[in-house]
Each structure stands twice: as structure tokens, then as C-alpha cells.
């Protein structure tokens, strides 16, 4: 046999999981929330979702084409960003909000920092906060065909009674994808079962937040109040889909718990002491910025290190 074989350094086998299979799973896991959003808010929600996803994918494609780089839209990460951003938009927003948001998310937050894996901030959240600041009235107007008036979380903040059951199901006003706790948890279960996310961050985030609400919420152990806080706003979507974003969360295991705890405290501060009823997006963005410090502080001890030499 004279044919030369392929050679490379060990190991010689690879797992089947790839970046695109992970991203595709995230897209699938977001579908229940997206589907419920469309069912709940109607046609405009569908249009916003499609336009935003198209905007993120096209931005990545065009950017890479112009710079002569390898086109990476096949890894579906732009789809995830677009979908997440759309789910964070109010259902009555005009279509161009999705376009601008999508361009900002991909171009400014992701590509300018080096593309996939290099962005220090979750692109969807970065874009959402950009839109919130630039188009405040559009982004905070949750009136639509189905609902008028404040979101349940805002009502809760102003001391009004809220219907916890409809908040859990999602038949309330809010952004497209955040209203249904059930749909989001179904998606989260898919990701957990596939081993794509684990409960380190969502678990420590939600538990810390609950403790914070119990201590400082002014309602003590009132189950209805706590449930309303859990089901309301972007907490579930944020905890399971945005705080767990690989690129912008700490890679160290201890650091992930620290990160979750910080997010829980920040969200509690923003929701209870802040001017706005909502605080998940800002909490996660600030958390993103703290990641390098968290990673440094929680760098793991190598196996067998630290012990005295026998």
C-alpha cells in the first residue's frame, strides 16, 4: 500500500455536536415563545419576527461579503440573534424598528468586535437597549390590538392587583416573546435536555432574584407577588435564553454561579428600586460587562494543584 494516510495530532475523533447544531436547537427552543407571541399579538408580531431575522442574517452576509470574509450565516447564530431581538420588541412596533435593531445587533455589537464569539455583549440585548434609548416611545408602548394599558409588571409596581394565571400562560401585554412563561419554559426544557444549557446560571439567577424580592419587595413571602415577578417581564426569557448566551457569560463553572447571583441582585434592584418596572435587559448587559472580572476571580484550580506536595 503506497497511498499515504491522513495524519494529524491526537485526538482523531470528534463529537457530532457543532456550532450550527447548537444554534439550530436554540432557534427551535425559541419557537414556542415565538409561536405564542404570534398567536397572542397577531400578524404584526409575525412580520416583526420575519423582518428582524432577515435583517440580522442579511447584515452578517453583506458585511462578510464586503470585507471578503468567509460567510458564516450557515451557523445560524444570526438567526438566533434576530429571533431573540424580535421577541424583545413590543408587538405594535413598526417593521423598520426590527430592521434597525437587526443591523445594530449584528454590525455594531457583533461584527465590529470580531464576529461570532468575540462580542462582549449579547447582540440582541445590546440592540434592544439601543432601541429603548433611541426610540423610547415606540419601545415602551405596549398598546396593541389585543391589549391596552400598562404591562402587568408596571401594574404590579404601581401597586395594582394582577392576574398571575394569565401571566403564566402569557395572555397579557408585553414584548412579543416574553409574556408566556409556559412557552419559554418548554423551550428551556428542550435546551436543558439537549445539554445545550444547564441550570447553573438560570437557577442561581432566579433563586437570587426571588430572595431579593422576598427581602426587599415589601411583600415578604407573598406567593402571588413573587409569582407575578417571576412570570412578568423578561425574567424567564432573559434567564434561560439571554443570560445563558455562551459568548457573553463566564466560561468558568464557579463564575457562572457568581454571574447568576449578580444578575439576580441587579434585576431586583432595577425592578424594585428603579424608575422602570423592568430591568432584566440592563441587568444582563451590565452582567456581560463584568464577565472578564468574574472569570479572572473564579479561574479554576487545576487538578492536583494547591495541595501540599506529599
Amino acid at each position: 500500500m503506497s497511498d499515504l494516510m491522513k495524519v494529524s495530532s491526537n485526538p482523531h475523533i470528534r463529537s457530532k455536536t457543532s456550532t450550527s447544531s447548537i444554534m439550530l436547537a436554540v432557534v427551535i427552543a425559541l419557537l414556542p415563545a415565538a409561536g405564542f407571541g404570534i398567536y397572542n399579538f397577531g400578524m404584526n408580531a409575525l412580520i416583526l419576527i420575519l423582518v428582524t431575522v432577515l435583517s440580522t442574517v442579511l447584515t452578517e452576509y453583506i458585511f462578510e461579503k464586503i470585507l471578503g470574509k468567509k460567510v458564516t450565516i450557515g451557523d445560524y447564530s444570526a438567526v438566533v440573534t434576530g429571533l431573540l431581538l424580535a421577541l424583545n420588541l413590543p408587538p405594535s412596533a413598526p417593521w423598520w424598528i426590527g430592521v434597525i435593531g437587526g443591523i445594530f445587533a449584528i454590525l455594531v455589537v457583533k461584527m465590529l468586535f470580531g464576529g461570532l464569539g468575540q462580542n462582549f455583549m449579547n447582540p440582541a440585548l445590546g440592540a434592544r437597549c439601543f432601541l429603548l434609548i433611541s426610540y423610547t416611545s415606540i419601545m415602551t408602548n405596549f398598546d396593541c390590538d389585543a391589549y391596552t394599558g400598562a404591562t402587568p409588571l408596571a401594574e404590579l409596581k404601581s401597586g395594582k392587583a394582577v392576574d398571575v394565571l394569565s401571566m403564566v400562560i402569557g395572555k397579557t401585554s408585553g414584548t412579543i416573546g416574553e409574556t408566556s412563561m409556559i412557552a419559554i419554559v418548554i423551550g428551556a426544557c428542550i435546551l436543558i435536555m439537549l445539554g445545550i444549557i444547564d441550570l447553573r446560571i438560570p437557577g442561581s439567577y432566579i433563586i437570587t432574584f426571588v430572595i431579593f424580592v422576598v427581602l426587599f419587595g415589601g411583600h415578604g413571602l407573598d406567593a402571588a407577588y413573587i409569582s407575578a415577578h417571576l412570570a412578568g417581564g423578561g425574567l424567564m426569557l432573559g434567564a434561560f435564553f439571554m443570560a445563558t448566551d455562551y459568548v457573553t457569560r463566564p466560561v468558568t463553572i464557579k463564575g457562572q454561579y457568581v454571574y447568576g447571583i449578580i444578575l439576580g441582585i441587579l434585576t431586583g434592584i432595577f425592578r424594585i428600586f428603579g424608575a422602570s418596572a423592568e430591568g432584566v435587559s440592563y441587568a444582563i448587559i451590565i452582567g456581560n460587562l463584568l464577565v472578564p472580572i468574574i472569570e479572572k476571580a473564579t479561574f479554576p484550580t487545576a487538578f492536583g494543584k494547591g495541595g501540599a506536595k506529599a
Partner: protein
Amino acid sequence: MARLTFVGGIHPYDGKNLSKDKPIKAVLPKGDLVYPLSQHIGAPAKPIVEKGDHVLTGQKIAEAGGFVSAPIYATVSGTVKAIEPHRVVTGDSVMSIIVENDGLYEEVEYPVRKPFEDMTKQEIIECVKEAGIVGMGGAGFPTHVKLSPKEPEKIEYVIANCAECEPYLTSDYRRMIEEPEKLVQGLKISLSLFDNARGILAVEDNKPDCIDVLKNLTKNEPRISVKALKTKYPQGAERQLIYAATGRKINSSMLPADAGCIVDNVDTIVAIYHAVVEGKPLMNRIVTVTGDAIADPRNFIVRIGTNYHELIEEAGGFKKDPVKIVSGGPMMGFAIFDLDVPTTKTASALLCLTQDDVSDMEPSACINCGRCVDVCPGRVVPKLLADYAEHYDEEAFLAHDGMECCECGCCSYICPAKRQLTQSIKSMRKMMLAKKKK
């Protein structure tokens, strides 16, 4: 009680069913035998024969080149054809003794040994040293050095590494099923060197039949216990094995003896038995020839020096064209570009694959998923170490415990972006080690 194991690790497709139930078959070499003088860690052996000399099976043809070294024996009878460089599995050219096989297999007279119970410790170690035994799990560290730690009374455990965690490999499994008495006897011999030690047969729990057999054989041996370890790669890595079996941790700068442990592979312990009880030097080993390209995957007992071509032939040749051939397991073995290399003391398998994951999957950007951190048995952060290695950032590499990597390959296996993590870290470690030596 939680199952004995370590933190991290992976569960790759194990492929053991291909060859697991195939009994060990002896292979008689037909062509020339090649004995590289460096089949172990340490100084190369020194040839004591010359071109044209006639040698017998079991005759010493090269003596140890120092304390950390091992002699080499002829495994056939025949004539020394040449002493010249020959390619080995790592791709290097190594000075080798080449013996032309006369096909007669005339043997030397092996010395008759008294029962090991009557031998002194020094005599036993001398037997092991003379037999040329080295760690046959892959590292090739001379066993007599391992068996002579500075403070033998501080050794508390002699661990037989029966984990065989590498996918596809079944050589240790067959040895345990077919010759468990030799393994237990060999372990008893090793234990007789260490008065305060207990013996542990550490077996992964995917081999329940081995666990039963060994438990049965050792039920009247108060000093030996069988421990079932969780099946997970790299359970058989020395540091992970010691931790699982004893709860003790060592790092890269420590020896198992620092934690009061001696670890030896199944085949090594059987070789100790052969040397001490039967007076035979290390002349053969079990090699699993397997993979989806092989017509009839099998386990062979192979005379050291046998050409890999002959092993493939014995296994029925190729049923499909192989794309990649690996000497050893898929996680830590060496890919070879040419089959014209000899079986050495450390060659546990010959794996022929019809698909090469490495060249089929192109590396892409790291998405920071953290899978490498989760699976790393060394508890370091492979993705960062690989970054430092790729930028040759020596300082950061060392500061983040780059030298603690055991090159097990888990990070590269699991990486969804298909980055060459182990590979980058490994080359950086090599450079650092070379620098240290200077």
C-alpha cells in the same frame, strides 16, 4: 455511594464491540523484525549484537543505556540483517536492530526461578529490569524505575490500571478474561515489594465480567481489592485513576509515588509475572487490530518487532479503504502515514478508520460554550490555553496552568467549533518542556 470517578471526561462511541469477543490469537511473524532502540522513556538501549550475528528467540540484543532505560530482546531466531534507522509510529526515524526471521523460533533456555515469595525485593526488581519491562499502556516508562521509589515503605497502594478507557481497545479486556490469574499473581509480586501497600484492581464498570472474575480470584487475598470505576474517558489516565481509586490528587510535577501510589497497566503486570515466575523477558504484547476498515477485527498476541502490514493481513486485510490509521486508541494514539512500522512495547492497538473527523470538520470561531471547561479532567480552561498557545504567550500559558494539561484530547473531542485545542496546547507544552531542559 457515588460511583468512583473524577470530574470532567467524555463518553465517545467506544467501538469495543468490534473486537471484544474475539479471543487472543497468536501471530507468527513472516518478514523481518525491527527493534527500535528507543521504545521507552529514557536513554536508548545499546546494541550488543552485530550485523551477521545469529540470534535466538529470547536473546538479549540491546542492553539498557542507563538507569532509566530498558534492554531489548529478540523475539524470533534468525540473523541480524542491519542496524540502521527505521521509521516508528511517531513518524521519527529511530536507530533499530533488524533481524531476518529464520522461521525456526529456536529459543534460549530461560533461567529457572525460585518462588517469588523466597526472592528478595532486590532480586525481583532485578528480574523486572533485566526483562526490559516498560509501561505498556503507552507511556513506556521503565517499570523497574517505577518499582524502586525513594521511600518504598511510603507506598500504600499498588494500582493495576484495568480501566482501558480508550475507545476501540480491547487488549486489556481480553487479557483479564483469558489470563486473570497472571494479572493477580503479577500484582502480588509487585505488592511483595511494598510492605505497607494494598493492591487495587481498578476496572471500568463496562467490564462487569472482568470485575466478577477478578473478585472471585482475589476473594482470599486480603491485600487486594477490586474497584469498579465509572465508565468514562479518560478514567485510565494515571492522575484520574489514582483519584478515583484512592481519592488522592497529584499534579503534573508529582509522581504517583508522591501520593503513595504505584500504577501499572494490565499488560505490564502480566509481563512482571512472566519475568519473575517464568524467567521470560518482555517479548510480546496484545494488540487490538480494529476499526471499520478492517475485515475481521481481532486481538492478537504479537511478537515485538512485527511489521504492522502483517497484523493487517492477519485481521483479514481491509474491507474498505482506510482513510486514517492510528497506532493506539483514537483519543491519544499516533496517526501513521505508512504501515511499514514495527510493533513496539507500547503499541496497544492498530485502528483503521474509513473516515477522518479531523479533516472532515473545519475549525471555526470559538463560541465560548464552555464544554471544554466542563470536560477537562485537568480542570483547566482549554479554550484560553489554546488561545495563548496560538499566540505563543508563554507567560499567560504558564500562569493559567497550561502545563497541567494531560493531552487526553477531551476538549478537542467535545468542541462544537471543532477547534484544535489539544493540538495547540500539546505543541506549546512540548516547546515549554524543551525549553526547560536547556
